[in-house]
């Protein structure tokens, strides 16, 4: 054979002598261990859309809830006719539409000047028909919309998760009956449950929250039940059961962590659907109504004057849409992060 080619040394054929430590070392490197949630988090961070969405949501939450000390609701409902229907005016910016000018009869006119408003007064996003700052109303409205959505989702989660776990864990007849109940409830359109609830209770935040919670939980319950059913037969849960741990403890220690990915993902999808429902109900006038404020109320107000003052609907619409997109993208991102199989 070509000895030259292979550059054989005198010691070439001496044994290499693997020692035990080396092998263990190499095995360590071969299997870097990440916990499931760390792994999911790492995958989520790689998803640009989801990360940006998360930031947007955080900013919106911080701004809208952080504004509480600054935006006084009683002030928000007082009308200031002298400031009514002013367009946006941002000091230092001279772009038509953001400088206090508005197209009136085809011409850009400075509405602030025309109405004899002092130079020092300006509204970043203009005002509504009662002279309230639109920016303030949007921030306040976002807070209300988010509150409704988040609280409703929490209720939904509470009912759905406990119902699902009980149904899946008990199994047998209990499960059967509980599933029939879900079947019946889910063949009633959500809309009808919501409408009936709103008729019985007076329209307002509380009744919307209740209505949403009651109508949305079945999806969550179904998914949790399915997961519980399959977990029940897993060995570590079986072991815990044979060792006589109490059901509650097992549920807390084994089930909740395991279904948490479902909970997180499902929550991220329920929130935007709750935001939509609140806006929808307020828009058709059976949800939150003026002088209360929510994104739906603002859209309803803005729509009335859309032909002449389009900004009054555009601004809240943009906020609402961004919020919905952010939650949907984050939901998709989380789903992909927790379930690598769906990643493509």
């Amino acid at each position, binding site marked *: *054979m*070509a000895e030259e080619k*292979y*550059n*054989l*040394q005198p*010691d*070439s*054929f*001496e*044994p*290499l002598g*693997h020692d035990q430590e080396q*092998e263990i070392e*190499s*095995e360590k490197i*071969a299997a870097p261990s990440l916990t499931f949630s760390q792994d999911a988090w790492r995958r989520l961070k790689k998803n640009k859309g989801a990360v940006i969405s998360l930031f947007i949501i955080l900013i919106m939450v911080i701004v809208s809830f952080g504004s509480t000390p600054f935006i006084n609701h009683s002030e928000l409902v007082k009308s200031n006719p002298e400031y009514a229907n002013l367009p946006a005016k941002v000091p230092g910016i001279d772009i038509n539409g953001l400088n206090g000018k508005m197209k009136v009869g085809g011409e850009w006119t400075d509405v602030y000047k025309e109405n004899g408003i002092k130079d020092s007064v300006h509204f970043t996003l203009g005002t509504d028909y009662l002279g309230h700052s639109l920016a303030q109303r949007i921030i306040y409205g976002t807070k209300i919309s988010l509150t409704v959505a988040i609280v409703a989702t929490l209720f939904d989660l509470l009912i759905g998760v406990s119902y699902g776990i009980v149904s899946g864990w008990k199994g047998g007849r209990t499960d059967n009956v509980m599933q029939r109940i879900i079947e019946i409830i889910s063949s009633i359109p959500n809309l009808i449950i919501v409408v009936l609830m709103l008729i019985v209770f007076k329209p307002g935040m509380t009744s919307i929250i209740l209505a949403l919670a009651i109508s949305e939980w079945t999806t969550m319950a179904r998914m949790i039940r399915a997961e519980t059913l399959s977990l029940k037969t897993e060995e570590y849960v079986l072991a815990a059961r044979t060792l006589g741990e109490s059901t509650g403890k097992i549920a807390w220690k084994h089930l909740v962590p395991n279904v948490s990915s479902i909970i997180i993902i499902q929550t991220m999808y329920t929130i935007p659907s709750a935001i939509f429902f609140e806006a929808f109900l307020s828009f058709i006038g059976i949800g939150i109504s003026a002088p209360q404020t929510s994104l739906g109320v603002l859209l309803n107000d803005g729509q009335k004057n859309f032909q002449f003052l389009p900004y009054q609907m555009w601004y809240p619409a943009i906020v609402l849409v961004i919020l919905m997109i952010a939650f949907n993208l984050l939901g998709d991102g989380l789903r992909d992060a927790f379930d690598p199989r769906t990643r493509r």
Partner: protein
Amino acid sequence: MGERILDVNNLEINFHTYAGDVKAIRDVSFHLDKGETLAIVGESGSGKSVTTKSLMGLLANNARVVGGSIMYHDEDILKKSEKQMQDIRGKDIAMIFQDPMTSLDPTMKIGRQIAEPLMKHKNVEKKKALAQALEILKLVGIDHAEERINEYPHQFSGGQRQRIVIAIALVCYPEILIADEPTTALDVTIQAQILDLMKELQQKIETSIIFITHDLGVVAGMADRVAVMYAGQIIEYGSVDEIFYNPQHPYTWGLLNSMPTLNSTDLQAIPGTPPDLLDPPKGDPFAARNPYAMKIDEKEKPPFFKVSETHFASTWLLHPDAPKITPPDEIVRRKKIFKKMQANVN
């Protein structure tokens, strides 16, 4: 053996991934003669499926053939267009996949699924194709074929489904049949039936078979020749008897050692894991797991040393300067049998 129909030379395939290029196939060469059965054995991830998919032109999108050629009747498959490959697939080279439970379209009657290659390649009209499908369905041993031809995959058992997959592969009487672990997903008794069926049909249809498996046990009754793959390379090849009774590469020893036999008392899995193909080691890829490794193994990849006209192995242990070592007991036992066999022949 008959004429040479397939000749794979120095094949190299990389997969482009986010982490870098996975060098899945590194300098693989083998050939296939008419009518013979070649078994390719190796651990999971050794590159068996990638090799066979390259024969079919069915590599994943991120795969790149970096070098080599696959000569089929003196034409390089790697140079053919997708359209030309479509004419070869299913007609000249057919394939059976590992999992019969997922290989069939759940929403199409099996008759139609078997008839499809005929309609595509032989321009047979649907009625005639279905009639031929019925024939082949009987041939692969499905009872009451007349009625069952109109049923859907879920109405068949796993073994039956694999028979149907075999029917699909053989319906055009291909020259080469690639079977990628065709029995792994089946239980043992069914496994034997399917293997028998394949042997029987090979006689009838006169096809050559490339038989992929990670289970040496299956190989003995099936193959004429065996190639052992490790980490994207073929490290030893020879006739069945040579591989089973006169193995030369420590990895082949390991495989044989981990195979249950009547005499073996203790089964030993090969310790350690295969190397990372993102950055394969410079020398012998098996060195890190090889108890007989030598210094040279870390530096230089061993060439193929000739053991007999048909038997080659890529290990420095065959170098004339290498120290004589004693293989594991089981291998010593096998080599004794080999000596006897040779004595009988002479």
